[in-house]
């Protein structure tokens, strides 16, 4: 009797699973692209993560940018950038998640004509562990086609400590600690992010 009931429950589970398969069906794409090259490289080391960010920004590929960060990603702005934002600074940078990162990047993609970023390594990672960090001096150059800096090319500079984690052989950033360059001539990437937060 008990096995019969269990069998009924199992059948119900399978039926529900099939029902779920019917409810959730993704859309079909328009078709193959004109070129067939993807910019994404499987991030088997931390260098590749930076390369993917660079190509995702240049190609304005939001999902490849999204995939360079883990689900529990947090961004930490330079304290002086937060203080200089005054009252708004208390909320503008607080609890910055991957969703905020992608939203801000999307906003920049909308207003930018071109985006280029370069990284210069300051402290190398230890990739034998599943978690590591690397420190990079970055230069982000954005040519604006709309928004508050229309027709300007602005350079953002700073130093980022990028904490990365390896899951299933793939690396992604789970913490970005942003600091102003020394001397702080340019705004940081953190200031740019804050300007495009929801």
């Amino acid at each position: 009797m008990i096995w019969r009931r269990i069998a009924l429950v199992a059948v119900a589970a399978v039926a529900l699973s099939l029902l779920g398969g019917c409810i959730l069906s993704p859309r079909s794409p328009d078709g193959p692209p004109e070129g067939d090259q993807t910019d994404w490289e499987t991030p088997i080391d931390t260098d590749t993560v930076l390369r993917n960010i660079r190509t995702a920004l240049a190609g304005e590929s939001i999902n490849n940018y999204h995939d360079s960060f883990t689900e529990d990603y947090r961004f930490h702005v330079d304290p002086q950038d937060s203080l200089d934002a005054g009252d708004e600074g208390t909320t503008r940078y607080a609890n910055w998640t991957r969703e905020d990162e992608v939203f801000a990047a999307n906003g920049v993609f909308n207003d930018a004509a071109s985006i280029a970023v370069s990284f210069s390594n300051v402290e190398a990672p230890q990739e034998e562990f599943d978690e590591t960090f690397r420190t990079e001096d970055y230069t982000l150059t954005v040519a604006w086609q709309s928004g508050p800096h229309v027709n300007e090319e602005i350079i953002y500079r700073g130093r980022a400590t990028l904490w990365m984690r390896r899951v299933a052989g793939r690396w992604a950033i789970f913490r970005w600690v942003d600091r102003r360059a020394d001397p702080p001539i340019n705004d940081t990437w953190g200031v740019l992010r804050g300007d495009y937060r929801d």
Partner: protein
Amino acid sequence: MGRSDSRGRAGEVRPWWWRPIALALILVVVLLAAPAAAQDGDDDEGEGGGGQFGGLGDLAQAAGPEFHPVYKLSHTRDKEISGWTHNFNLSYPLASRVSFSSTTNITIRENDVLNRVNLQENWNTGIGVAVSSAISTEIKFNRIKQRDVRNEGSPNEVRSFREKESVDLSTSYKKVYLNDIDLSLGVTGGFEKNRYADVQSRGVAQSINATLRYDAPMGLATDFSYSGRHSLLDSEQGVLASTDESIDHNFNGRLAYTWEENQLTVDLRRSTSKKEYPKEQQTERREQNGEAIAVGTDLNLLPALDTRISLDFSRSSSSYELEPSRDNDIKTYTLDGSASYTLGDTKFSTDLRSEKKRSNYFDEQTGDSYSQSFGTSLTHRFNDRLSASLRGRMSLLSRQYDDIEANDQDRDLFDQEATLNFDYTPRSDIRTGLTIKIREDQLIYIRRSRTGDNKTTQTFLIQPSVKKDFGSKISLTQRYELSADYTLYDYDRDSNFLIRNFVIGTGLDWRPIGGLGLNVEHKYRGQDEGAYREDEFGVERYARNSERDDHSMSISVRYRLLELIDLEVKQDLSFQKKWTFSDDEKRLAWEKYDTSVTGRASLNHTLEDGTRLSVSVARTHRDATNIVERQREVWNITANIDKTF
């Protein structure tokens, strides 16, 4: 957008460290004075007490013996970064209906290499008077100060700061009528002063709040609350001198009806706010509105069957006068349902969630997102030794933008996952486990300009484990993991990729005598990765690009000395090799090592007078292939004093 250099505007003439020193001096005075005051109180009591109140101790004695100043001090130092935290709390009954409270928190972080100091202070002081059992009034002072200084004293010094001071006088009324009606009302008025970057503002603020809670017969409960705030601040920023007005209204309501083991709830929320503030020497006016309603049921209509269903709607909008590009209006509709059924040793549960979100950003990001997920799980306990569970989950996230010409990021993310888990205990000293997992993620860009990135990621994983106890003092654990991770592109198959992992982890835990523990762990990971693509015959083939071996081992010895001090010595060693393949030849690409020895002593002790001491000192010596880690010394010191009397 631009940076405001606040150098020299903070008006600091005293060095940053005067406050902690002043606080420490206050602490010393309090520590010395309090026992004496308590002693005085005892003497007074012996003589009849009451009489003339000569000091805080006397007042405390008259009002009651509780006197609880608490001081916490902690210090950490990790490489070039050190931090100090001072926390002081004082709650003191000045008379039977008058109480004094004070809280101070100061945090200082220093970076010696970057020559940087970050200081955060929070001061709160208040005197409260209980006018009657229902009415109380309180005056409070609050000061928040944050400062960050780089290269102090040098020509390239940079300072940033934010300060806020406020004084509030509040009166509140709270009463319970007929045991079923709670009513509370509050009114607050005060002054506020703000300084940050090149902005200064000062003015007045008022707020009111009211709560009405009613538990009616027949299982009906209601709870309504309202809060409102108004402020008028005179602000200055450069050439701008303005009077900024801000208003907030918040309303919350809840209705709950309970019958037998079932419940129906309705939650309502409505909020509006208007805020004016200086921005780049102009007055920014921000308006925000929000509303939400949620209806939920928790039903237990049949024995062993539990169902929950909820329907939510929320809407929020913001508008800015100076930055209209930040305007937004977002609506979200959510349906959430779950059910679980328990039959003897079998439990079945399922859940379904569907959400539609409409986001108006008034630009190319405007669009809809649909999120749906569905999950089921079946768990069965066969007997005392064997249990198993089967879980399945799928979700679909769909982003659809209105302007497909300007925004080609339309995409679907479709995830499916199934996990089978066994837990088997053949003998009381042996426990085994097995996990098998299959996962598939699909990324589908819809617009042709993006479909080059369309891909499917498949993960296959098997993870057995075993734990064996040898008596009560030794246990041995071993875990294995075998996984393959495929990335398959829809239109760019030359980029297909495969990663394979093999992991063995072994751990030994030995506690030979009380207070002494030994732990040894070793982990081996073998990984190879490379292209996975079709050959000229249409057969999928794997071409290995590289291979790597990671070994890591750690040995730690722990001992509790004199039942007081925890000692630990730990040594870690890891080395890694990577080979690349070219022309079928395996070549060593690089090898690395990393080793560290850490000694740690920690103490947690409570003195007879209740003072709690916590001290931890750790020193690490590290050596590695990486030049930064080579011959590196790290100190990590934490001290915490918690004094209550």
